[in-house]
């Protein structure tokens, strides 16, 4: 049998972790990436990476608690075994990254320093200055370069993944790619293909994501029959710096290190922020969420900032919506040591020093919880069966998905600093899965009839040639992209309403038809960025429609998906007995809603239309409970809920 090879699409944290681990297992890997892997989007991550650690343990923290925070933060919409496994691996992954040379910040004694992130009460987050993602990515990039030098890894950088090669049985046998320089289209035989292509923020026009985060690779798998899960769950980060080309993130660590969010009590108070006295400032997060304060989970912080500006009219500026994020009460030295990098970004792009002047920020699209549907195999203990070939395989055999582009781990809402963890974790666990797959493989892809690869290549070549020749339609892809972004941002971010979603769907379909008439301003066959962008744009539509349709059909509020028409308000009554009755009714409704909606949205592309079905969620380890951050009457509802749970299963109410 010819030598087996694996093709990894994308070299962010997930793709690099998978490649490094596969190489260690002696498996040859090809990597394909739009940009040199060292320039992948993961470099943007600023804040840090979570795990239980020696310090938090002594405060009562455990892997179980991290697991619990993650599923609670995600509103229970994720299969629990993989999440449990991830939380268990957390400390080991940070140890590994430490060994690989990541310059994590240190305590005076030389241990890893930690900070607190949203959605937890523990200081779980390890960090390297304010460029944790960059540092983690570089450490993995270095290891992969080491394997590249040793000849086990080949890189195809500046290549665009065009789709999987499927054989007659629908098994993935390779990948198609296009060289972005010579525009050559090639078919790569591969015994497994791992898609690690990151998020799809560019569907929203501007977001906190990098320019290659178009979701194109995922969309091409979706078009080839892979299922897409939980598309409607798009995280909007509460604090970004509004910009013309990009909405640059202001990391949650700014709040983790003590940053306070406020607005002047007087609408559009024109005074200099620093001269507004404490009594005339409204610290609305601290006021509304005394327990978590400025560190409430992202969906809640986002909604509150949105609410303060849009509904209460308290935006700091009149023609641009924003609130203050204030660090000026912290010493400069400490800020430089812990947040230097991100404060430099603010200063560099806004021309204002956030150490002395409160920053102005507003929410922006940030993370895709949804992604390609992937499988797993559960152990009796409720964890992941490591080495099972089912780990992270899509419904297309041989095609795997990891990192931000899979739908696992974060449910309806991702906790800060959990994504870097899930990216590295999934990279590490997909490798032994593939090792098993290759062991059981009877025939190497390289031994298959060459016509399979050649005919797949020819199809793509024809599509490409047709796109190049397209003239006369007159539509401009850049303009269409902007319109798509505007529609998606208005209808499918912080607040969602059915009428708007319906209208947005129609408009997106119109845009899709127009995108098919794009004329290219470059018809050459050398570094033609115009055709690559246009193709990525065309491939945004299946995912955009999946997001809208999933959101339209989900008549409830869960995590990042908030529908005011279907949300459950807090308690109103003041009379204790009546209040208790309301709490009981609230819990009844919660149970009914759980039965109806605690399901993953699964989308399959039929022609050009996504078809939606639902999948039950494995919540067998931690029973779902209401997510009550800041709701009026939360304590009482919680009490009623616990009583109910105790009555059902005496041991379950451990949290």
């Amino acid at each position: 049998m010819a030598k087996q090879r694996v093709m990894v699409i994308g070299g962010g944290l997930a793709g690099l972790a998978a490649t490094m681990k596969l190489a260690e297992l002696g498996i040859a890997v090809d990597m394909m990436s739009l940009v040199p892997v060292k320039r992948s989007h993961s470099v943007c991550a600023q804040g840090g990476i979570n795990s239980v650690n020696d310090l938090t343990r002594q405060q009562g923290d455990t892997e179980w608690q991290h697991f619990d925070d993650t599923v609670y933060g995600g509103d229970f919409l994720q299969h629990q075994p993989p999440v449990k496994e991830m939380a268990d691996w957390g400390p080991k992954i940070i140890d590994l990254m430490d060994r690989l040379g990541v310059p994590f910040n240190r305590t005076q004694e030389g241990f890893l320093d930690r900070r607190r992130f949203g959605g937890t009460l523990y200081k779980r987050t390890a960090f390297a200055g304010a460029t944790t993602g960059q540092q983690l990515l570089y450490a993995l990039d270095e290891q992969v370069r080491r394997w590249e030098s040793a000849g086990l890894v080949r890189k195809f950088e500046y290549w665009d993944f065009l789709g999987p090669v499927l054989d007659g049985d629908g098994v993935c046998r390779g990948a198609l790619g296009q060289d972005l320089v010579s525009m050559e289209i090639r078919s790569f035989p591969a015994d497994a293909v791992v898609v690690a292509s990151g998020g799809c923020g560019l569907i929203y026009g501007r977001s906190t994501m990098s320019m290659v985060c178009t979701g194109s690779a995922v969309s091409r798998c979706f078009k080839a029959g892979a299922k897409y899960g939980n598309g409607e769950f798009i995280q909007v980060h509460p604090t970004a710096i509004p910009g013309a080309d990009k909405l640059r993130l202001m990391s949650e660590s700014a709040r983790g290190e003590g940053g306070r969010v406020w607005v002047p009590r007087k609408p559009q108070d024109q005074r200099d922020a620093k001269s507004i006295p404490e009594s005339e400032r409204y610290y609305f997060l601290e006021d509304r969420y005394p327990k978590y304060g400025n560190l409430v989970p992202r969906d809640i912080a986002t909604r509150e900032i949105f609410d303060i500006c849009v509904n209460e009219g308290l935006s700091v500026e009149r023609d641009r919506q924003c609130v203050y994020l204030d660090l000026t009460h912290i010493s400069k030295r400490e800020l430089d040591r812990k947040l230097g990098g991100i404060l430099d970004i603010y200063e560099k792009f806004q021309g204002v020093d956030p150490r002395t002047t409160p920053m102005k920020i507003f929410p922006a699209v940030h993370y895709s919880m949804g992604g390609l549907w992937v499988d797993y195999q559960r152990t009796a203990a409720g964890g992941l069966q490591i080495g099972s070939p089912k780990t992270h395989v899509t419904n297309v055999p041989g095609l795997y998905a990891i990192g931000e582009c899979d739908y696992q781990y974060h449910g309806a809402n991702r906790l800060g600093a959990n994504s870097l963890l899930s990216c590295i974790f999934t990279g590490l666990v997909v490798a032994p899965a593939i090792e098993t797959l290759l062991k059981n493989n009877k025939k190497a892809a390289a031994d298959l009839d060459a016509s399979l690869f050649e005919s797949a290549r020819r199809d793509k070549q024809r599509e490409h040639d047709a796109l190049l020749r397209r003239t006369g339609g007159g539509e401009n892809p850049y303009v269409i992209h902007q319109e798509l972004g505007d529609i998606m941002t208005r209808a499918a971010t912080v607040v969602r309403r059915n009428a708007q979603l319906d209208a947005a769907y129609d408009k997106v379909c119109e845009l899709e038809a127009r995108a098919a008439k794009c004329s290219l301003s470059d018809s050459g066959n050398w570094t033609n960025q115009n055709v690559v962008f246009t193709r990525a744009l065309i491939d945004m539509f299946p995912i955009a429609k999946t997001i809208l349709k999933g959101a339209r059909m989900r008549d409830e509020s869960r995590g990042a998906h908030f529908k005011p028409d279907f949300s459950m308000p807090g308690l109103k009554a003041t009379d204790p007995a009546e209040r208790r009755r309301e709490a009981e009714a609230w819990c009844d409704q919660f149970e009914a809603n759980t039965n109806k909606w605690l399901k993953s949205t699964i989308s399959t592309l039929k022609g050009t239309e996504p078809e939606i079905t639902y999948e039950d969620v494995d919540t067998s380890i931690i029973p779902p409970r209401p997510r009550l951050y800041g709701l009026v009457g939360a304590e009482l509802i919680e009490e009623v809920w616990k009583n109910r749970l105790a009555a059902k299963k005496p041991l379950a109410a451990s949290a």
Partner: protein
Amino acid sequence: MAASHDHSHGHSNGNGHANGHSDGHADSNGHGKPDSFEVRILRQDGPGQASYWERHRVAYEPDMNVISVLQRIASKAKTVDNEQVAPVAWECNCLEEVCGACTMVINGRVRQSCSALVDRLLTDNPGEIELQPMTKFPVVRDLVVDRSRIFRALQRVQAWVPVEGYYDMGAGPRQSQEQQEQSYPLSECMSCGCCLEACPQYLKVEIAREEGETDEQFAERKKAAYDKNFVGAHAISQAMLFNSHPTGRMNAGERTDALMGEGGLQICGNAQNCVAVCPKHIPLTTSIARAGRATTVRMIQRWFDK
């Protein structure tokens, strides 16, 4: 010493636009922004072809950077003379100056285009912005250059920690805050190439593809050529980063050897242009000095070992 690092290269481009500071320019009208401004771009259709200047007019918007300027140009793809042209090719990704992709020469200075704010560029040089590709790397097309040599240099100096494997072996070596504060800045190098563009000793290596050569053969020939030439300040600094890591130190000798070989440290003329242009303020000359000491020690060691 603080030589004109901006222009060690010599594109003859008719308009001898110099070091970003033409003194005594009239600040158009004090306040009030222009309605539009002109962008001059040095274009090239492919490797080995002639380059040519092209002018575009872009409508002014607040908060623009050079990336948004290039986006506007791509979306219009028409020159000042209203001639339809192929969109300009350029690279970018993060738009936050952390990925290093978007490096180019802007108003004569090598830098990242995502952090080049139009307001500031127009204050320094009213009415016009000039963009050219980096000159030390072969042009692929327009503003896109082939910087694979930068990554090859990282292989040459074995810029990694040689851990035994990726199974759980407990935490890494304990390190002081001081050690972290020393290595962190070096570890921020994003392989952008600014330091190389500015270095008088770093010369362009451009290998033309030969008839009938496969991709692999061409890549091998390129690597061989790169390996004979100067590794560059970024790689010297990376070698020092890993030589100071408790585990990385274990093959410090090999890294130092690499710096003593052909195209190594001895090429550096200590002009210090590199450190002046590094967007991450990496103390490159400190690294170079350390590397100098390390090679001296290594030389004596080798002499004794004979």
